[in-house]
């Protein structure tokens, strides 16, 4: 063995340790990078005896595939519960219970004003109050309706945005898929994992990783991205009266896709199920109040003897168009209180309207019970989604910890590696000077 061959091995060792330090540097600099998986350098045994090569190009990306897939799956639920809680809280705030401006207080005030009118059936002042309370009752119904409608439109826009996001991510994954097959880059894989993680926040997906390193992603059994094939989603929002329905389709094939998880799944469920439910209940309540009050009111007489007048407009169909009739609005003196003409002291009609609040006339409930059921339902949903969100956050956090315990960068470990490689580098450097001295010795022998 020649002395120069020792130099060769040392040269290799220097390069080798340098590349190891390089890996440590990369790990440390990415310690806070989301989705980064630590790299490990595998050094093959150095054989100084023969003219063997040192191979330091085998850098491995450390990962735990099972935990990762689990994480993608649980992410979908987390996205759903988070969005559920956020929007349901907004809806709860629209109803604004138990504030003064909440419907239950406004309804109480409306009916109490009829009680006051029944005490003083001749009074024009009490009639003005009844009219004003009727107006504010209508306005409150209108406001809640239009707030729900606004949130509905906002959700429609959000659905469109999320679908665009999904399509973007799917396209990016597809292009990474192509690159990966050409060049098995760890950084690209990290980037792809991050994209899949973001995608799993948005919709329900299934992930299959092929032997060639390419991934196949499908949702509801429909392939979004596979070996060179990519399919986008489109959204179709149909409006029927005050209710919108959002359907997700594949761009090609036009088959419907059931998105039931992730942020998009939450938005679609709230848009297609909950908001229509609340709006239709609100409509039932408003139209039944109008109908019942009118039925009693139109039978009565005012002080001036007018009769047959509706208190609420007669074309009320729901919360959006509940309003006091034009006759009553322009002249509250036509509000009727008496069941007989020319008996202004009789207040039986006003009393009957007051009593309506105890009558189980809205699908077998009193108006207040019916309304409280809606509020209870919303409260339950907020509470439940908040609870689910919290426990899901714990699940995801635990999985992330498990993942990081395998793939994450530990500063201590990297420092130890750094010292180890640094010392190895110093030793190799010392080898060079030793060989140099040996060469001198040999030369001096001549």
């Amino acid at each position, binding site marked *: 063995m020649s002395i120069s061959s020792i130099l060769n091995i040392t040269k290799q060792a220097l390069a080798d340790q340098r590349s190891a330090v390089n890996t440590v540097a990369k790990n440390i600099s990415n310690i806070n990078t989301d989705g980064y998986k630590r790299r490990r350098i595998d050094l093959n045994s150095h054989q100084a005896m023969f003219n063997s090569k040192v191979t330091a190009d085998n850098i491995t990306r450390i990962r735990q595939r099972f935990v990762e897939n689990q994480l993608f799956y649980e992410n979908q639920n987390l996205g759903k519960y988070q969005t559920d809680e956020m929007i349901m809280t907004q809806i709860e705030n629209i109803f604004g*219970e138990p504030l003064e401006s909440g419907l239950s207080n406004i309804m109480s005030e409306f009916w*109490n004003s009829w*009680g006051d009118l029944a005490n003083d059936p001749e009074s024009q002042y009490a009639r003005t109050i009844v009219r004003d309370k009727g107006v504010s009752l209508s306005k409150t119904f209108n406001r809640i309706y239009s707030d729900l409608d606004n949130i509905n439109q906002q959700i429609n826009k959000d659905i469109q945005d999320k679908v665009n996001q999904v399509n973007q991510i799917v396209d990016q994954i597809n292009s990474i898929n192509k690159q990966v097959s050409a060049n098995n880059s760890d950084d690209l894989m990290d980037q792809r994992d991050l994209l899949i993680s973001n995608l799993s926040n948005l919709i329900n997906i299934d992930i299959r990783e092929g032997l060639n390193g390419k991934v196949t992603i499908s949702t509801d059994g429909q392939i979004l991205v596979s070996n060179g094939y990519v399919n986008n989603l489109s959204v179709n929002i149909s409006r029927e009266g005050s209710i919108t329905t959002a359907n997700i389709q594949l761009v090609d094939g036009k088959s419907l896709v059931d998105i039931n998880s992730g942020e998009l799944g939450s938005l679609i469920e709230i848009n297609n199920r909950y908001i229509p439910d609340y709006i239709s209940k609100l409509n039932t309540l408003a139209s039944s109040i109008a109908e019942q009050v009118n039925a009693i009111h139109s039978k009565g007489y005012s002080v001036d003897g007018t009769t047959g007048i509706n208190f609420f407009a007669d074309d009320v169909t729901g919360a959006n168009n509940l309003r006091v009739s034009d006759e009553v609005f322009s002249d509250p003196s036509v509000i009727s209180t008496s069941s007989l003409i020319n008996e202004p002291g009789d207040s039986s009609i006003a009393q009957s309207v007051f009593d309506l609040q105890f009558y189980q006339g809205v699908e077998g409930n009193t108006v207040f019970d019916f309304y409280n059921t809606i509020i209870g339902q919303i409260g339950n949903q907020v*509470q439940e989604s908040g609870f689910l969100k919290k426990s899901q956050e714990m699940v995801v956090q635990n999985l992330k910890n498990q993942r990081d315990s395998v793939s994450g960068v530990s500063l201590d470990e990297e420092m130890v590696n750094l010292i180890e490689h640094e010392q190895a580098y110093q030793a190799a450097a010392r080898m060079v000077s030793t060989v140099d001295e040996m060469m001198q010795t040999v030369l001096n022998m001549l």
Partner: protein
Amino acid sequence: MRITQSIIMRSLLQNVNSSKENINKHQTAIATGKEVRNSSSNPVRFARASRFRKTISRNEQYLKNINDAKGWLDTTTSLLDDISSTMIDAKEIAIQAADESNNAEDRRMFADKIDSVINDTINLANSTYLGKYVFGGTNTLGDKPFSYDGVTVTYNGNSQNIDRRIAENYNVSINITGSQLEDTNLFSSLVDLRDALNSNDTTSIQSSIENLSSTSEELFSLTSALGSVKNQLTMTEKRLDTANMNLSSYLSQTEDVDLSKAITEYNAEEMTYKAALSTTSDAIHLNLLEFIR
């Protein structure tokens, strides 16, 4: 388990955040005094609280009705008292006029006095409360209930009761109608007396005195009927007041915060938070870098 920097940071953040969240929860509960602030904080208790609030507001309306009804009753009672005292005046005049020393001329003077008593009584019977005729039945507005053309008294009202709702399914009639007044022979006995005085008919004067006495008695029985209505009102008022007091305390039990418990929990949570913060500041620096130079 292999612990990395990211795991440490994640757990620390989670601890600090959840402590902060709990502190905020207790803090708002203490500041607002309410544990159940909206439906989502506890749907079942919130629904119960809403029902309590509704019942309280309904009872308050009934209490208002009772108060209004009492005003009406008091006015009616004092008017009946005034009418009774005019009866007594009339009776005194009749007794004076019945005296043997009076001649026909004197008795005509007494008749004029009775005539003005009749007018006084008519005015009392046409009295209003808050602009409404008290004795007109449900004809509370428009023409006066009683008119007097100098000869006879006519009633223009009706015999309908004015009802007030004072509790669930509990109505009371709070008015005395003009017909009920007429039934006491109030005006007829006065008119008869006046006519008897004018015609100097001593026998009729004597029987008029008796009629006036029985009218007074009947007026008195009307007053006592009103008294018993007022008793009903007072009893119901008491019952509603007690009910609302109880309901308010149930409401408070349902939605208000138990302060001593909340403050204790707040303090405990504050300690946890401080501990989380101090371990965080320590743990962030805890790595090999701090020890190798």
